[in-house]
């Protein structure tokens, strides 16, 4: 067989291989669920939480109908998150329990870890530090290797330590969270805020003020009203500790104006 023939056969094989690339088959239903999910994401980013909840519900309904386990987990978590923002704590609990206690379907550990973290946050919101610690530990257990939310778990634990008035532990955990979340602005700002709170607890008001200002810049860039308000309240506390009553009043006034918009 000559060189030309060999080359021709090889070229044909390459061409045939290229033509034979099988595209992943995605059903129209799956595409519809994806569309609802993406519209939900956009609504959430715009702060239209009720609309986002409706869209996630529609996506979830389709995912359940076609038994798309990944989609079910993702949209249940999203729905829980939106309901948490909307203040519907009981519904959030039910959704997370549904995911964590499901015996029929097997969800990815990463999704279960996220659900456990959300449970820990709910417990913490209700000042149940023991419950929060339990769920944070469960989250770590689910999240064994290549844990994408390790930094988030550290922040949750820092939050638990703050509630337990353990400033040193809170500072240590939030510093670790800060380095773990260098590329996640939301969690980076959370870590800075937690560090500021820990510093305030240790009466290090200047350091706290610097950290809060850093967090404020990030939260403003992300456009998160509730987080901006929290930053301003922390700044006010720092100014008070520094004896700068007027500046503290200004910060509280700014925080009150944000609260008056009722945007989260």
């Amino acid at each position, binding site marked *: 067989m000559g060189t030309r023939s060999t080359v021709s056969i090889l070229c044909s094989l390459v061409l045939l291989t*290229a*033509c034979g*690339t099988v*595209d*992943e088959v*995605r059903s129209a239903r799956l595409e519809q*669920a*994806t*569309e609802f*999910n*993406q519209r939900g*994401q956009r609504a*959430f980013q715009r702060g239209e939480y009720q609309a986002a909840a409706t869209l996630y519900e529609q*996506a979830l309904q389709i*995912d359940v109908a076609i038994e798309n386990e*990944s*989609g079910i*987990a*993702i*949209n249940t*978590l*999203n729905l829980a*998150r*939106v309901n948490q923002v909307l203040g519907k704590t009981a519904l959030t609990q039910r959704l997370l329990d549904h995911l964590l206690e499901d015996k029929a379907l097997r969800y990815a550990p990463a*999704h279960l870890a*996220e659900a456990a*973290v*959300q449970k820990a*946050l709910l417990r*913490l*919101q209700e*000042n149940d530090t023991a419950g929060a610690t339990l769920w944070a530990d469960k989250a770590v257990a689910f999240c064994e290797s290549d844990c994408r*939310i390790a*930094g*988030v*778990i*550290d*922040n*949750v634990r820092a*939050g638990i330590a*703050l*509630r337990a008035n353990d400033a040193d532990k809170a500072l240590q955990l939030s510093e670790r*969270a800060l380095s773990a979340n260098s590329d*996640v602005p*939301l*969690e980076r700002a*959370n870590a800075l*805020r*937690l560090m500021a*709170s820990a510093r305030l607890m240790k009466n290090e008001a200047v350091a706290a003020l610097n950290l809060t200002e850093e967090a404020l810049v990030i939260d403003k860039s992300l456009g998160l009203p*509730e*987080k901006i308000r*929290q930053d301003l*309240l922390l700044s006010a506390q720092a100014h008070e500790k520094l004896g700068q009553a007027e500046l503290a009043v200004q910060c509280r006034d700014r925080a009150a104006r944000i609260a008056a918009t009722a945007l989260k």
Partner: protein
Amino acid sequence: MKLPNYNQRLLSMETRTKRFMLGAIAVMLLVLAMIAAKQDYFSRSTAIYFFTPNAQGLSKGMAVKFIGFKVGSVQEINMEPNATVRVKVSLDDEYVHLIGQDAKARLVKEALVGESVVEIIPGSQQVKQVRQNSVLEFERGQDASTVVENLAAQLQPILSDIHQITSSGDIQQTLKNLNQASGTFRQTVNEYTQLGANGNKAMERINSSMETLDKAIPKLVDKADTTLDNVQAATADIKKITNDSAGEIPSLVRNANALVQDGQETLGGVKRSWLLNSLFTAPEEQSLPVDGYVAPPQP
């Protein structure tokens, strides 16, 4: 030894040439068969005709559609001795039973910028279906540019009317007269109040004012009548334009929708093609980022 070898090579060459020729003929036949299939040579069809004063917008091979589906094509366009145009349309037998003899053929544009097609407008269900060599009535649909041109042509007189009404001075004059009359009337009443005892004189003035009003009111009524006539004419024109366009607008909207859908399907197909599919990753469901912060209770 050389001669048999040469003969053998000749024989081999002849065989290869034959194979090549056979292959080429097979490919040609396949292409011809595909063209024939495309031209509906393999499907049974019924020929019908329609006549039109001119062949503008019509072309051989043009699609013939019925409720949005292709049911045939234009086969021939011939000029008749009386300078009319005879158009032969081939309809798939599969759809012939749906088309009554009182159906109409209409030349329409598929979309604002789409191709022209001949659309069969269904006739009455009771009438017999079309048969070989049936003749359909033909009409030209209005495309977007014609609708706009008609709209412009019909708006022109309305605008002229409005301009005439506002610039003729009728309205201004009427208002001026009314103002003058009411001024006189007011003056008269004042005088009547002031003079009291000289009531007769004042009454005379009232009478005078009333006379002025008597003169002004008929003029006012006449001018109001003219104005109302103009407004009525304008309203009639607007109604006519709306009625003329009403039939075309749903078709334009439907065609635009079809065009968008076709565009989406084409884009989807291109995205899925093996050359480009690596550039367009399929969207996937995404989860919201977890927010690991709970605000402390406020003091």
